[in-house]
């Protein structure tokens, strides 16, 4: 029973973070039609900025908010410098087919990931460093026994829930959010209706950058920080997004919790070595049974 509770709690807390990562992926996929494989590279970069600020004597919260802002700025910058020129490029023969138009941004994002990781190595050296948590990481004591649930877990889950609520309100209730949903639905029509689609694209990169930076800040206290530590988080976040449906923000959150719980139960009941195989299994099962994800839309093909 203790193992079960421990797996459940740690899965929920981790799942909340994976939900954020998946949400970041979904926002850029809807807003710009790109799966951003550099996302956790951006998060790694802004977490390093926070870490440097905190090591130089600033408070945790200064580092925290600077990192969120840096994540958003970096996301917007990458869109303007790399992805926008790519999507506005004249159609050459190479880019005329649908399959290559989908493949080229993926390759570009891998290039961005490489650049960010190399830069982080050059600036901050490659060895792992710790990252502080704003709340205690010891379990609560209830009736004399230590529970597998820490105040840091409470912090993580509540801050993720607040972020998710705010994102939902932003997309549903504000004019900009409406414009972004319209762009995601049909870019041509959105542009014809007077929406500045370049702006909404860049905005989705910025929001996604901030969300993934938040994920980076929340996950590094338990996993340490190095240029490559967040690669695995991206893989897990991608799986979460596909499980829930790449088109659906609500699906991303659902997928995050599902994948978090699967990983946690596999780690506690089998062994940590089986985590990747189980992620692969979950991914393949979803892709075979419901290729568009649990909450994803319908697939359609146009001639």
């Amino acid at each position: 029973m203790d193992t079960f509770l421990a797996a459940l709690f740690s899965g929920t807390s981790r799942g909340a973070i994976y939900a954020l990562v998946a949400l970041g992926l979904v926002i850029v996929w809807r807003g710009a039609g790109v799966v951003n494989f550099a996302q956790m590279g951006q998060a790694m970069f802004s977490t390093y900025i926070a870490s440097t600020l905190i090591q130089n004597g600033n408070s945790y919260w200064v580092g925290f908010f600077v990192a969120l802002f840096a994540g958003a700025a970096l996301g917007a910058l990458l869109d303007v410098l790399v992805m926008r020129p790519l999507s506005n490029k004249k159609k050459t023969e190479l880019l005329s087919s649908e399959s290559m138009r989908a493949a080229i941004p993926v390759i570009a994002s891998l290039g961005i990931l490489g650049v960010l990781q190399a830069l982080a190595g050059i600036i901050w050296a490659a060895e792992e460093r710790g990252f502080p948590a704003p709340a205690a990481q010891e379990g609560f004591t209830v009736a004399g026994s230590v529970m597998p649930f820490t105040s840091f877990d409470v912090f993580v889950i509540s801050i993720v829930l607040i972020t998710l609520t705010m994102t939902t309100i932003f997309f549903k209730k504000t004019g900009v959010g409406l414009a972004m949903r319209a762009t995601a639905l049909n870019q041509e029509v959105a542009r014809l209706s007077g929406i500045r689609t370049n702006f909404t694209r860049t905005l989705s990169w910025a929001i996604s950058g901030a969300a993934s930076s938040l994920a980076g800040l929340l996950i590094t206290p338990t996993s340490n920080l190095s240029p490559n530590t967040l690669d695995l988080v991206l893989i897990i976040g991608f799986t979460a997004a596909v499980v829930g449906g790449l088109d659906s923000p609500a699906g991303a959150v659902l997928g995050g919790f599902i994948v978090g719980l699967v990983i946690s139960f596999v780690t506690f009941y089998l062994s940590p070595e089986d985590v990747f195989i189980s992620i692969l299994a979950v991914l393949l099962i979803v892709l075979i049974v419901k290729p568009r994800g649990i909450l994803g839309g319908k697939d359609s093909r146009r001639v």
Partner: protein
Amino acid sequence: MERIHVVSSAAKNPSIIRRSFRRTIFFIIAILAIGSTFEPYNQAQLAVVLIYFIGVLSVTILTGISGQISLGQGALMAVGGYTTALLMTNYSISLWIAVPASIVGAGIAGALLGIAAARLSGPYLAGTTLVIALAIPTIANRFMSVFKGDEGLPVDVGYPPSWFTSLFGEPTYEEWQLYVVLPFAAIALFFASNLLLSRTGRMWKSIRDHETAAALAGVNYSRQKIYVFIIASIFAGLAGALYGLRGLVGPSVYPVALSLTLLTAAVLGGIRSIFGAFIGTVIVVFLPDWIDLVLDNFELSEQVSNFMPALISSLLLILTVVINPAGVAGGHHHKHK
């Protein structure tokens, strides 16, 4: 089945075979001529170029020709490497039989992967193959008794047979590495060249350009995508087997970065051409040496110089994609439109 088809369609058109054959002969002569002038270190590097070249050809066929992106070719290389290493260490089979046999193992893995992948496209395929690239090497630690975990299975190219030494004299170990790899690279080149020029190659390009249009023209694209995966896996498996023969087959030899290196080489050189695949491979393999040559003139800390090759090659990748996505060898493609 598909390979028979490839051969037969090329056989109808002898000029295709002749063209591929001329390319291959030229390739062999050029490599031997250049290799004989190199120092042992650069001969070993040239052997790595030939090995990567075979792997990059698998990306060219898969992504450049049929439009499917894979970030998991390194995992298929691992399958080829482990097949060869297990045959050589457990059954003491000669590498000249074990390496071709690894093709079978990689082909079967490619077929399984292809059946799953034929339903996916674009980013879904990229992400799934990335998860595969991560998950497959962990199997080595799951079945310790067979795959020996992180320690891996040591294998190498051994020594040349006596008829070779009596004919050509005693080669250095690096030279022998090069001579072992060259015939496989030449066969891979010949096969890839035939494939690209043949009817099958054109069919795969039609799938890349428009699946639905290809289907309307009578191409069963789901089945063809699986065939593409099998062929590409065979190339990757062959490359992986030869890569392992440099000394060790283990999880650390086939990291995710290997898959990304292959993709980088293919894109830099030109994702649609065999010549581009070779140029890109040369760039990727020799870039760290060239950078070292330049950096020697500056006083840089190890921290900076260690990450320079990764930084430069990633920057080159972004610049290629944004400025000239057709790559070094692909400039002429623009003229068509």
